[in-house]
């Protein structure tokens, strides 16, 4: 009898514990979602480090996304990080008779590029996709760019998939917050300024920076470490582009010789990219000056952009990339 009463007691207390655990989990889910919204609205940025919600914060992504919704049938679609939206001046391409749209965004990694392609590739309908592959974006976790995408583009099942894949608390918080803002239409009237004094958004997705020159500084040597998740996303995105019968060229835009020389295993990266398809590394093609053609260690200034784009268009024609 005593034995039975022990089992009965054990079952009762354990049942109570499990029941309360499940109830608390449900309560917490609702509580957390509610708190994220209230906290995000009420608290200043200082008190919400994991809820930054960078709406119109950098790279003019909000404006770019508004513009891409009205863009279709272009010759070239540019993808990639700031090296893309600060490297491919759509006006230079226009002058040469090539229509293009620049869908680059800050620190855009293949995981986010894949989502942008799923959302807009068919709509833009480009003949050629030019993807700028800056090694740092294939090394990184992609969280910065994912936050940019959540705050400035729509939230759909792809956004949730991306957050799930990247497993980052900041992404979860921003996704929940963005979801509520979208439902309540809180960002509907948001207008992003087209210029912040130094950077100006150019219709077509390019961002022009007022002419500055880099003061050369030595950089510590480092080795690239590829993030397998990013590589997998890159491969899937390329597959998606090809499955729609479109051509793709992978490009590494020039960085300063100081920056490029500081990376000890560039050849590994080149060979990895070459395996993905047609790939050109302009660090080995153009001989630019670290100070005259760059405004920081890895971004071209307008003088550098003109040289790079002219050479790229020349290669485009010579190699008949745009069939």
């Amino acid at each position: 009898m005593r034995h039975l009463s022990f089992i009965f007691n054990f079952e009762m207390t354990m049942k109570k514990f499990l029941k309360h655990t499940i109830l608390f989990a449900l309560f917490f889910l609702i509580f957390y979602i509610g708190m994220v919204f209230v906290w995000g609205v009420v608290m200043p940025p200082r008190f919400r480090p994991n809820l930054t919600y960078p709406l119109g914060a950098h790279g003019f992504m909000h404006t770019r996304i508004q513009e891409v919704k009205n863009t279709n049938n272009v010759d070239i679609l540019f993808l990639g990080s700031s090296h893309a939206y600060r490297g491919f001046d759509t006006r230079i391409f226009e002058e040469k008779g090539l229509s293009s749209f620049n869908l680059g965004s800050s620190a855009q990694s293949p995981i986010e590029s894949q989502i942008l392609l799923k959302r807009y590739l068919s709509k833009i309908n480009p003949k050629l996709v030019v993807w700028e592959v800056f090694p740092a974006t294939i090394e990184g976790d992609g969280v910065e760019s994912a936050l940019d995408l959540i705050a400035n583009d729509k939230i759909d099942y792809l956004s949730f998939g991306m957050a799930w894949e990247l497993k980052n608390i900041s992404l979860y918080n921003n996704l929940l917050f963005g979801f509520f803002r979208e439902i309540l239409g809180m960002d509907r009237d948001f207008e992003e300024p087209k210029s912040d004094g130094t950077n100006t958004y150019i219709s077509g997705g390019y961002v022009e920076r007022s002419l500055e020159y880099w003061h050369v500084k030595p950089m510590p040597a480092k080795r690239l470490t590829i993030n397998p998740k990013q590589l997998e996303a890159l491969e899937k995105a390329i597959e998606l582009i090809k499955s729609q019968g479109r051509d793709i060229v992978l490009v590494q835009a020039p960085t300063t010789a100081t920056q490029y020389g500081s990376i000890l295993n560039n050849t590994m990266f080149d060979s990895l990219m070459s395996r993905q398809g047609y790939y050109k590394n302009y660090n080995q093609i153009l001989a630019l000056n670290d100070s005259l053609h760059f405004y920081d260690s890895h971004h071209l200034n307008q003088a550098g952009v003109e040289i790079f784009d002219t050479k790229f268009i020349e290669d485009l024609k010579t190699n008949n990339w745009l069939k």
Partner: protein
Amino acid sequence: MSLLFFSSSVDYWVGLVLEREQSPRKRKLYLWASLGTNLALLMFFKYYNFFVDNFVTAFTFFGINISARSLNIILPVGLSFYTFQSMSYGIDVYRRKLKPTKDFVTFLAFVSFFPQLVAGPIERATHLLPQFYIKRNFDYDKAVDGLRQALWGFFKKMVIADNCAVHADMIFNHSSEYTGSTLLLGAFFFAFQIYGDFSGYSDIAIGISRLFGFDLMKNFNFPYFSRDIAEFWRRWHISLSTWFRDYLYYPLGGSRGGVLKTIRNTLIVFLVSGFWHGANWTFVVWGLLNALYFMPLVLSHRNRIHIHGISPGRNLPTFREFLSIVCTFVLVVFAWIFFRAQDLSHALDFVGEIFSSSFFTIPQFEGQYQAVTTLILIVLFVCVEWLGRNEEYAIGKLGLTRGKPYRWAFYGFILFMIGMFMQSNETPFIYFQF
């Protein structure tokens, strides 16, 4: 694993032999065999390179070149913790304070009990081992209490320690670029980093153990509210301090045997305690500093004047108490500089800058905007700790008399704060390296 298995096997076997053996000489021999094995493993894995490097440096200083190479040794996680736990078993069996277990599996479970294996609390066999024999009934209140303590531990680690770590690392890693006032702030952040990190881990370990029906010893008792250094050492890393007290200080004679012996014993305990933390002179100096703080109290027999709770029955401390708490905290923070510094010269430069005229400037460093937020979090944290200072852990009784919705909202809020302030990148526990 094989190392853990080996040292456990030796201690298990020695325990059985010690029980059978009657000859005092042989018993002592067996005990030393057990201690020797444990200490040899510890010495090799943790201190081999330190000794080799220092011997080479010392001989080179006297013009003798010796060729001894340091080895690429990986320190097994938790080695210092489980070695001490296992040694306490051997000693207690030797002292006939404990009957040795005949069940090898139980003994292995005691040594490798997962919540506290890698960073303590360092349990005593007399306390933990018998708990493996008794039938454990699932106790609802105990399980909930355990989860509450673990939750507070996670808060300490993920909100307080990890956010302080960002600023402490920034300041300590670039200390040559900063003024004295900034460096002092860096040491302050490190003080809360190490407290949140280590006591947070202990709370998680104790809480998870309680969920499974095991009681582990208290490891931290609000040490930063201590009114003198002796009290601090009764409240900080209690499982280690009491280990040294019971297995080193008392066997050496403790404070019985005159002033010189007391000084010697105190010095030995603090130096060994410092050295236990790592193979670096910085830890030795940290231990020495604490010994120097402690010495006047023990010599004047004032080391046990604060053995009761802090400001019992009052909401705020008296002015005198407050002053003592602040002075003790300042001394502790100063000693932490040596604990955190990369080497002695780094520590001395750090201290030198603090005691320069640059101390009278406004702190400036990268990330100071976020640092203000971290300071506000620390203030809130200290307030909660103060409210619960006489409990097992800070939120042990907080809000328990209120209804369920209030309590759940409180737990939900702590979890929310973790979600809002935790660092995205992985930050391992500091004491995992020891």
